[in-house]
């Protein structure tokens, strides 16, 4: 299940389950959204992106859904594997006077149990 509190939200799943990680973004003017995966001791790595003129995009085992009405983004991971264990961040890009500001959301720790 998922727990949200003062610390990093955590999602625990069994290997083979589907995982859904949610993100609320802050700026209604944001027009580009990215999901990153960060493993321990590494920098964030790109997983999948979506622009604001779309509401769904699929990759290999991953799907991103965008709901602009409620400013919500989700990442679905199919058939979750132990190697998917990491912290997942959504990021939004918005135009601030001609410069784009890439801003990260709070993050969710995904733990996959074999």
């Amino acid at each position: 299940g998922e727990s949200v509190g003062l610390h990093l939200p955590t999602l625990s799943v069994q290997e083979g389950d589907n995982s859904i990680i949610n993100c609320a973004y802050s700026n209604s003017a944001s027009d580009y959204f990215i999901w990153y995966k960060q493993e321990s001791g590494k920098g964030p790595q790109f997983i999948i992106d979506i622009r604001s003129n779309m509401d769904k995009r699929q990759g290999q085992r991953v799907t991103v859904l965008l709901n602009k009405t409620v400013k919500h983004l989700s990442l679905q991971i199919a058939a979750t594997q132990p190697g998917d264990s990491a912290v997942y961040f959504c990021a939004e890009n918005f135009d601030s006077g001609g410069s784009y500001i890439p801003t990260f959301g709070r993050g969710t720790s995904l733990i996959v149990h074999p």
Partner: protein
Amino acid sequence: DTEVTQTPKHLVMGMTNKKSLKCEQHMGHRAMYWYKQKAKKPPELMFVYSYEKLSINESVPSRFSPECPNSSLLNLHLHALQPEDSALYLCASSPAGTGNEKLFFGSGTQLSVL
């Protein structure tokens, strides 16, 4: 070469020291970024260089001084830091320099200020 390389990987410094963090990419990317990340928190944007010019400074204290000697290199000069500046410092790059694109991250420099 599809990597962003950061050196050193770890750094311990006193509050009166001067040190520099280095970042290098050879992907021909035109924008480079510095982020600061505390444990269990999302990366926070500090600086953006686009086409070797500083385009964004997120109100970072002057004890952090960025430098972009050429399109492949990014430095962060540190002077008179405080213990609360201890964090993981991440460098990133992006291809077109517009900012509205995915970022490629290095593995970071873990900085401890004593």
